């Protein structure tokens, strides 16, 4: 694809996303996912969640604790990118350390999240805000691993500070959206 592979890929994902969102492809895909969500409720996590409210509550508490750590990692990393926190520490170090924490807590959130989703699979299947959260989450994961991390592995000390700030702001926006839509799920249905 030439020297601008990553940029072209990002552009393609954006175009694909717009096409997906604005056409019937969205609905067709949603309908095709119904069997998966019906199956999820029959899995061990699904059965355990539905039988023991306490189990679900504990997993949810773990989800919240992982969220606290992930939120902390994001706030420290993006706060540093925006020059708001830990200013006298090398950008490189703060970013690398936060990223490790981020990856572990993200894994914990996905595991606990899938567990909970199995318990309430059909309920969330019919919830708009659940799908917005999934969209935000997928965007966030792609953004971190395909765009942000490759960028920040480079020579950050000599990079355009406006670009770094833009990336920091975008990152905060995505993870705020994931958290907010996630909390909203709790109020719906």
């Amino acid at each position, binding site marked *: 694809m030439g020297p601008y592979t990553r940029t072209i890929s990002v552009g393609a994902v954006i175009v694909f996303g717009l096409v997906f969102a604005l056409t019937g492809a969205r609905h067709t895909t949603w309908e095709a996912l119904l069997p998966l969500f019906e199956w999820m409720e029959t899995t061990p996590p699904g059965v355990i969640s539905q039988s023991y409210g306490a189990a679900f509550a504990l997993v949810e508490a773990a989800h919240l604790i992982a969220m606290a750590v*992930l939120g902390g*990692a994001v706030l*420290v990393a993006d706060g540093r990118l925006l020059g708001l926190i830990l200013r006298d520490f090398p950008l490189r170090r703060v970013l690398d*350390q936060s990223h490790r924490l981020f990856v572990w807590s993200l894994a914990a959130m996905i595991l606990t999240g899938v567990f909970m989703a199995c318990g309430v699979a059909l309920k969330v299947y019919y919830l708009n805000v659940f799908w917005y959260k999934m969209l935000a989450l997928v965007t966030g994961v792609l953004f971190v691993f395909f765009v942000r991390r490759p960028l920040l592995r480079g020579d950050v000390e000599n990079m355009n500070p406006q670009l770094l700030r833009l990336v920091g702001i975008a990152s905060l926006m995505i993870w705020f959206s994931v958290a907010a839509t996630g909390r909203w799920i709790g109020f719906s249905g």
Partner: protein
Amino acid sequence: MEVFNQLIYDFAAWVDTHQWSTALHESFYVYNWVESTHVVALTLSIGMLFLIDLRMLGLAMVDIPASTLARRLSLPMFLGFTVMIITGLLLFYAIPVRSAQSLWLRIKLVLLFAAAINAWLFHRRMSTAGRSWDTAVKAPMRLQVGASLSITFWVLIVICGRLIAYDWFDCRAEPSSFIAALAGCVAGQEAF
């Protein structure tokens, strides 16, 4: 114990008569926003705290001197705790009687008190510990113990917070006399 429970119930039932309390409870969105803020502010309050605790245990951010990290993250952490306290009080204010008689909230408040004492002791020890260990991966043993206790307390606090919503031990559900005493159920109470 009974006198204590009666006092708490009387106070909560009185708050329950407030117009603003009912308004908040029955509001279309505001209660949900307050609760959402309470939950999402966890990232600011215990997010920062866990980073500090994990640093003391040598598990995260090890390149940054421990006491420096603690000091720098203190401001956002206290900001987060302020938000937690304000939203927590508002949540209590909206549903005073059930909250006051919630077994899980009572346990949570005891744990919060324990966590505060632990934090104060930790802070005192950190101030007197000098700087020699600052760049080491792990903090001195006593500070590690404090950090471990901190994580334990706050994990339990989050769990108790989450369990408040479950009504297994609500006074309305007429629990056993042992639970009823702990939760502060008052015989013949009219408000719930």
